[in-house]
């Protein structure tokens, strides 16, 4: 009788052996990290040393004209310049360059002089120094022209600046002494003292980079294992072979996940060890490192690793989930690429030491562990927040694992790709839907704009309740004819899970909060013109009662826009395009239909989010609920400050949990979905 434990060990052993015999995986996951960082750091150091050493040893040629300097200074300037050895000094007459030089423009804006100097430099000198009487006697100036696009020119400027600065200070001291009899700066000594210990300083710098590196490495190392264990085995048929043996599917999943996690964690340990070792051995430094030797407390490293472990579990579980959905390795790679890019974003706040860990950020997947890892390494972690992060991250990881346990649904795994006729039908349906989206955008601009110019309220109502539903019906009918799907199925017009609708409403405050911040960020480079601010709503609409406003501006767009965009349009493209392309198309057309450059980004992001929600829930109702709740919050937020409270954004956490883990794994793509109950 086979026991689950023995089966787990057997599958785990076979998976690990299979991976260890894959040379490419071995090199990418284990050998490369060990060699990569020392080589990278040493290479960086070598190039820096070589390049600065090489420049320092090169002779610079300087054209010098001190004829306009005070007589007693000419020799001192020459002596100072000569100190920039190795150097060749050529005495010239800079009269041609200085012709027409005017102080009132400032040295940089004497364009004609600068152009003449550039021409002079082109003759072979790296710098041209000319003395010039200052605006007010007896001051005088030394102007240095150099070519900032030329390494040797920059080096010449650096050497000359250092030497002439020394001369400048000496002349200033002499003047002070001559005029005052003492140095007026005496009595103030600036002595900055860094109170951070070497371990704090090293940990702070490492803590900024390590979370990003850890996610990169985890995704890189574990993704190959996940692709091999799930998508690769499905493609090769070994998954089906496994599932006809007397082993529960959950044991198969557990063993495969354990393999992926082991590979991921081992790769991460190797990479982190290699980086820390390279830094400790002085092979190089990370960007932004402070002066002084690298020192790191081993206890902090251990605590940081512990804090990051739930994130590693979550990443590996999600990798397995994604790869478990793919039918081939290639399909898995296509699914993983956007996921890998997205997964890096939550770790970015750790790069800034200004982002402070709070209870909200601690609960955000990957962001919380990244910030705690950063704080633990620099010795400033709050134990309470670290514990809260650990609990929250463990909960996210547990939910992902729970979902993963249902991945190996043999009914889904044995489905085959559609035939060529189906592929052609899907392609035609997708093109048709894209054409309809284009038509709707222009119809809303032209017809909707004209209707609303006649009467804002009735024009908007007609646009929403006549133009959009008619377009949705026509587009969905066209898709339905091509694909053979029912009209209701194209429009995702089916009963939703109550939990999904509830989650959509809970997510609305967070979406409104995010939109407000996107808008504020956008103001930095695309400010809203003042006249737009004062004309936020046409007078006829602003004069409506609150109920009528909610009906017209929240409920009507939610139903009618969703009917077209997440119904007909999404229904037309979802069988042909990848999830990533679907989201981009939805964002573009939904942003475009709002006919405002300033509203494009927030509405485009909302469109992509609503499309993702519809794909996940396979029903239009949650998108309608979120859209209506979001619009209602924007309308009511000004009247009821409670609804605009940013703390309501916290509701996004239970919403995300309900959406991600409530209901089966979302089915996209073209696989048939078999049912095992009577239909």
């Amino acid at each position, binding site marked *: *009788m*086979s*026991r689950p434990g*023995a*089966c787990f060990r*057997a*599958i785990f*052993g*076979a998976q690990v*052996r*299979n991976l260890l*015999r*894959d040379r490419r995986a071995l090199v990418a996951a284990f050998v490369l990290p060990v060699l990569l960082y020392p080589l990278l750091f040493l290479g960086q150091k070598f190039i820096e040393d070589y390049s600065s050493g090489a420049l320092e040893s090169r002779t610079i040629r300087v054209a010098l004209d001190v004829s306009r300097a005070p007589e007693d200074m000419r020799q001192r300037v020459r002596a100072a310049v000569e100190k920039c050895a190795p150097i060749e000094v050529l005495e010239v007459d800079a009269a041609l360059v200085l012709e027409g030089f005017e102080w009132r423009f400032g040295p940089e804006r004497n364009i004609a002089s600068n152009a003449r100097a550039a021409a002079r430099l082109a003759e072979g000198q790296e710098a041209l120094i000319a003395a010039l009487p200052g605006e007010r006697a007896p001051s005088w100036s030394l102007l240095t022209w150099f070519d900032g696009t030329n390494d040797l020119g920059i080096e010449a400027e650096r050497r000359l600046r250092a030497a002439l600065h020394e001369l400048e200070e000496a002349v200033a001291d002499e003047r002070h002494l001559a005029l005052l009899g003492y140095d007026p700066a005496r009595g103030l000594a600036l002595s900055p003292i860094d109170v951070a210990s070497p371990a704090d300083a090293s940990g702070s710098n490492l803590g900024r980079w390590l979370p990003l590196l850890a996610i990169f490495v985890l995704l890189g190392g574990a993704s190959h294992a996940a692709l091999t264990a799930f998508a690769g*085995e499905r493609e*090769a*048929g*070994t998954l*089906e*072979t*496994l*599932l*006809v*043996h*007397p*082993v*529960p599917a959950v044991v198969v999943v557990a063993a495969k996940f354990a393999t992926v996690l082991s590979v991921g964690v081992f790769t991460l340990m190797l990479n982190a060890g290699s980086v820390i070792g390279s830094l400790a051995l002085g092979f190089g430094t990370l960007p932004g490192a402070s002066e002084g030797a690298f020192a790191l407390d081993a206890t902090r490293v251990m605590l940081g690793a512990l804090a990051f472990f739930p994130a590693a579990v979550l990443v590996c579980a999600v990798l397995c989930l994604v790869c478990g959905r793919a039918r081939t390795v290639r399909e898995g790679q296509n699914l993983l690429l956007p996921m890998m890019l997205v997964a890096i974003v939550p770790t970015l706040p750790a790069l800034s030491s200004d982002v402070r860990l709070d209870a909200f950020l601690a609960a955000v997947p990957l962001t919380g562990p990244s910030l705690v890892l950063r704080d633990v390494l620099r010795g400033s972690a709050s134990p309470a927040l670290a514990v809260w992060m650990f609990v929250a991250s463990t909960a996210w990881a547990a939910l992902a694992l729970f979902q993963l346990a249902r991945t190996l649904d*043999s*009914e889904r*795994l*044995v489905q085959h790709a*559609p035939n060529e006729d*189906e592929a052609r039908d899907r392609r035609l349906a997708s093109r048709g839907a894209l054409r309809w989206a284009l038509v709707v955008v222009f119809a809303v601009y032209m017809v909707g704009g004209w209707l609303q110019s006649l009467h804002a309220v009735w024009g908007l109502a007609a646009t929403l309740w006549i133009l959009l539903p008619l377009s949705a019906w026509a587009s969905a009918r066209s898709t339905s004819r091509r*694909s*053979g*799907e*029912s009209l*209701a*199925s*194209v429009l995702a017009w089916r009963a939703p899970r109550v939990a999904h609708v509830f989650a959509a409403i809970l997510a609305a405050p967070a979406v409104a909060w995010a939109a407000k911040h996107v808008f504020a960020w956008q103001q930095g480079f695309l400010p809203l013109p003042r006249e737009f601010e004062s004309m936020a709503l046409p007078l006829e609409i602003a004069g409506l009662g609150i109920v009528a406003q909610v009906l017209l501006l929240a409920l009507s767009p939610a139903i009618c826009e969703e009917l077209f965009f997440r119904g007909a349009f999404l229904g037309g493209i979802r*069988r042909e395009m990848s999830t990533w392309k679907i989201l981009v198309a939805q964002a573009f057309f939904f942003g475009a239909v709002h006919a405002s450059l300033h509203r494009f980004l927030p509405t485009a992001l909302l469109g992509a989010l609503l499309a993702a929600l519809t794909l996940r829930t396979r029903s239009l109702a949650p998108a309608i609920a979120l859209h209506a709740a979001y619009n209602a919050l924007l309308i009511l937020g000004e009247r009821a400050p409670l609804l605009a409270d940013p703390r309501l954004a916290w509701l996004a956490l239970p919403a995300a949990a309900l959406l991600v883990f409530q209901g089966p794994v979302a089915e996209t793509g*073209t*696989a*048939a*979905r*078999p*049912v*095992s*109950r*009577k*239909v």
Partner: protein
Amino acid sequence: MSAAAIRARGLEKTYVDPRGGRVEALRGLDLECSSGEIFGLLGQNGAGKTTTLRILSTTLSPTAGSAEVDGVDVARDPIEARRRLGFLSGTTGLYPRLSPRETLAFFGRLHGFEKDELDARVEELVRAFAMEEFADRRCEGLSTGQRQRVSIARAVLHDPPVLVLDEPTTGLDVLASSAMIDFIESARAGGTCVLLSTHVLSEAERLCDRIGILHGGRLLACGPLDELREKTGKVWLEDVFKELVQHARETTR
């Protein structure tokens, strides 16, 4: 009377297809096969052969009806059903970077073999299927015929009373096909019940004690070849098959 090795009663399977419609892959299939018998399932693509075999191998669940393997209900106790069944199809693959010996040892552990017993069984199979030459080479470097031998050995590793073979000779050359046919005959001789789906009618004529013709998810006819010949008035199995399918189409038109 001993229980049938395979028994299906009113088996139905319905898929929801991506177009929102539904596909009835099986519509009330009744089937019985005994120990020491080779039963051949014939049918066009989409007739329901693979669905039937996958329900018996527990990778698919029936929408309605029941199926038993060696007296075990596949829906109620799929793990026990799998212990009594050897399943082989064109889509059941082998780990490319494991050797045949490691492959057999791995699947043997999943069947709960103890180490000594497993070692002995693996060696026995290596000899029985003449795999000595390549038993320690990785499967990715083996020829199609060699891989097929490993697959058969994997399917019979636990000496199951029932063998379910889905188009076992597809993609094989003449020699490998011939070896497979010899193996199926030897399994029958050993008292194993073999349920076989195939497109190769000559294979079915040679091997099968009884033949079932599937069409549109229903069993059109079932019995020894002579009985089917008598029923249709045709001699060759190909003609028998065409006659039955033609008649079914006319009836449903």
